């Protein structure tokens, strides 16, 4: 590294880091991911984001499925729910339906999300349940030791595809954009600060927000989604990209060779919660539909 490097002083840094209060979102116990895992970066991002939004610990719920990524709740000091393989979103939906006041964050890996759990995503998206879904995409199965995953590159050699995989990888961003997710973004574990910003935005968004996080697996992928690789490949979404333009977003999402980081798409529309509210009002008497709609647009109280 030959760029000019001014002296950095530890106690200044410690003041900054320990001062801002994001450490309180961490669990006491150290994460058990492999040293070097990108998930550490996500963990850092989530704590920073929740802190920035001043979400009280008691009001945050992190829901996960099965897989390395799904160990995440154990490393947070918020409410956590570690469920079954692929069943993250239904459980998270239930939590949200039961208590609109909660900030619900669903997390999982690419296998949990797009293989066994793939069937649940479109429905969570079209209902626009007001939760944030983060997929830590490392393109490989970690917990079962390195088999191919739905986002693995074509021709990936793994113990379960010793003669190369012959399946095309999914394009999660395209899927979510077409599923009708109301907020779709992408970040990269190697860019810690940008990642934190995106997570904060995703959580703040009202509706189903989907954040796709490129996160290298240092143990089982030495060739494809490595830091070295992604550092070169990733780019920022062009400054002139209009996040309300779904087709433009899809165009960018299609260019997988150089994954673009940033906010792809955002729209404000009634959430599942609004729907319940609407049904409630319709079912009840003496209320005008119009009022209901207006009420529906009103932001449901979030204790943020």
């Amino acid at each position: 590294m030959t760029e000019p490097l001014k002296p950095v002083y530890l106690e200044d840094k410690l003041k900054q880091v320990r001062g801002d209060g994001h450490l309180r979102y961490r669990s006491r116990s150290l994460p058990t991911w492999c040293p070097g895992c990108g998930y550490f970066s996500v963990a850092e991002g989530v704590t920073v984001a929740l802190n920035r939004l001043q979400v009280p610990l008691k009001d945050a719920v992190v829901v996960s499925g099965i897989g390395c990524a799904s160990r995440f709740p154990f490393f947070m000091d918020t409410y956590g729910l570690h469920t079954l393989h692929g069943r993250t979103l239904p459980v998270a939906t239930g939590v949200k339906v039961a208590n609109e006041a909660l900030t619900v964050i669903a997390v999982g890996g690419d296998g949990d999300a797009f293989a066994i759990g793939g069937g649940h995503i479109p429905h969570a998206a079209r209902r626009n349940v007001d939760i944030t879904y983060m997929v830590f995409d490392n393109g490989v199965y970690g917990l079962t030791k390195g088999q191919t995953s739905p986002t693995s590159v074509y021709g990936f050699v793994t113990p379960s595809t010793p003669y190369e995989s012959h399946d095309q990888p999914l394009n999660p961003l395209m899927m979510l954009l077409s599923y009708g997710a109301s907020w779709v973004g992408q970040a990269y574990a190697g860019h810690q600060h940008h990642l934190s910003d995106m997570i904060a935005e995703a959580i703040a968004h009202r509706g189903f927000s989907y954040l796709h996080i490129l996160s290298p697996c240092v143990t089982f992928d030495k060739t494809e989604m490595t830091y070295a690789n992604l550092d070169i490949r990733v780019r920022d979404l062009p400054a002139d990209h209009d996040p309300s333009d779904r087709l433009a977003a899809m165009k960018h999402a299609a260019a997988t060779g150089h994954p673009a980081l940033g906010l792809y798409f955002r729209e404000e529309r009634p959430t599942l919660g609004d729907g319940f509210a609407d049904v409630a009002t319709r079912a009840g008497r003496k209320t005008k539909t119009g009022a209901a709609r207006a009420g529906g647009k009103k932001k449901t109280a979030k204790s943020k």
Partner: protein
Amino acid sequence: MVDRNGSTDIQFAIIGSAGDGTIAAGDILKRAMAGLGYKVIAFDIYPAEIRGFGKCISRVRVTTEQAYSLKRHSDVLVSLDDSYAIPHVGEVCDYGAVIYEASPIARLPEGAHITAHIRPTQLPYGLNQREISERATSAARSRNIVILGYLAGLYGIDPQAFRDVIAAKFERKAAIVTTSNTTAFDAAYEVGRTVFKLDQGSLGEPAPAKSGETATMMTGNGAIVRGCIDAGLDTFFGYPITPATTILERLAAELPRHGGRVLQTEDEISAISATIGAGYAGARAATATSGPGLALMAEMLGLGVMGEIPSVVFVSQRGGPSTGMPTKTEQSDLNMAVFGGAGDAQRIVLAPTNVDGCYRTAGKAFEMAEKYQTPVIVLLDLYLSNRYETVVPPAKNPFAPDLNKGLEAWRGDGDYQRYQQTEDHVSPRALPGEDGGMHTVTGLEHSELGKPSDLPENHMAMSAKRHEKLKAALTHPDFTICKRFGDEGPIDVGILGWGSTFGEILEAMFAAQAEGIRCSAMKVVMLSPLPEEQIAAFMDDCDAVLLPELNYEGQLANLISGALGRPLTRLNRATGAPMQVEEILAEVRRLARAKAA
């Protein structure tokens, strides 16, 4: 390490933190020893985390004659991480060796170094694992190879055997990996060779191989794969789940070479569905999973029973219920295997007791599935799936290639009846593509024609058909559905057992006999349908019957007492660890004393 009769019986225990390469070291060790002609039985224990944290243990028992289980006491303990190894120092026998890192990096409080715990009766060997590795490779990563070199030097084991395995193991990695590891190995070998030996003993010679036989080493899962291939498996659908994953991986690598097809599906539901579909189309089809996966498959298995479609499901049990203990062993899916699913859905359930048995059972499972047109569940458990034994593959393929009672067996007049009632209750089965055999398979209760029918007498008859046809399996050719070992005639204590636990049961039986107790043991391989006559006969001979199994409820005990209504003593352990020979023996002694009194 060299026991009374001069033959080798030495057990190594390598203990470290996940990421230390503990399991890999054990793997190289056992392969090298097997390569030298020793009999090996080995079992690894590892945590769910990939690396960084959690205890890993690799135990390798090396013997001249094949042993049936691991010993409680190890002769050599190697610590790659004292914090995990210290609780196991007591596991080392008198004058057994403890090998450890002599210069740890971090400052340790009193008692945190293993030397604080080594008993005066044990032999301490300090080794600069890290330094030797770093000297040889400029990195500490090869510590696990270093301890192997040291062991080879210390016990005078031919280093070439290790070098070969190391080379083979890292074949697919960059050449530098092999060379640097070999350098580390050789450096440590020299240290081990020249270190002052606290015990003069060395390993006894391995037993000479019988002519024409080449023993190889396999895990239970490895033997399943071999069995599948020899039985002509056509298609395999799987979804990764510990501890069954390696079946998928091995088949993915090997089956294509034998014309078969392997696909990793998006989940277990899809895996069993595809298996049933392929079975319907006439393929020998199988999937492999563990308890949670079997639970997901229950409904589709019901269709298999109802549609009388051959399929084989290998189930490697782990600690349950729910996600339970994915990396711990248990025998608690017996109920689900036998009863799981909607309705009266009997299917064949088999449980091999050792690695060699895994091979035979796998092959026979396809014969039975085909012959009796039913799903067959083969119950393994983590301990059997992952443990290594040296086995001698049969000279000629022992499995029948085709037992399908096909369309040609159709003698009736009129339309072809897929579910025709016959002598042996097995109907001629037409496969798609066969002229004149067109029919429909449905999950609805159906008539002999296969048309939906909920007439009372039909459901009764069809239920009878689906159960009765399976009885023939009890006499399936060239297959041991149960077997008695030990003393003949009247017995003080008889031990019933199933699955991996039977290894410990045998060792316990031998020990009991040595103590003068008239003891005999019976393994039950076919758990559904249950060989009731043989079990009853065995119990007749015994004054007391003990049934040790690795679950809390005593699932086989329930099955047997339910079927035979006879008293037996249960020994239920649900610890996640294999049964201890000593536990069984203690129970046998107790029963023997009780009888004497």
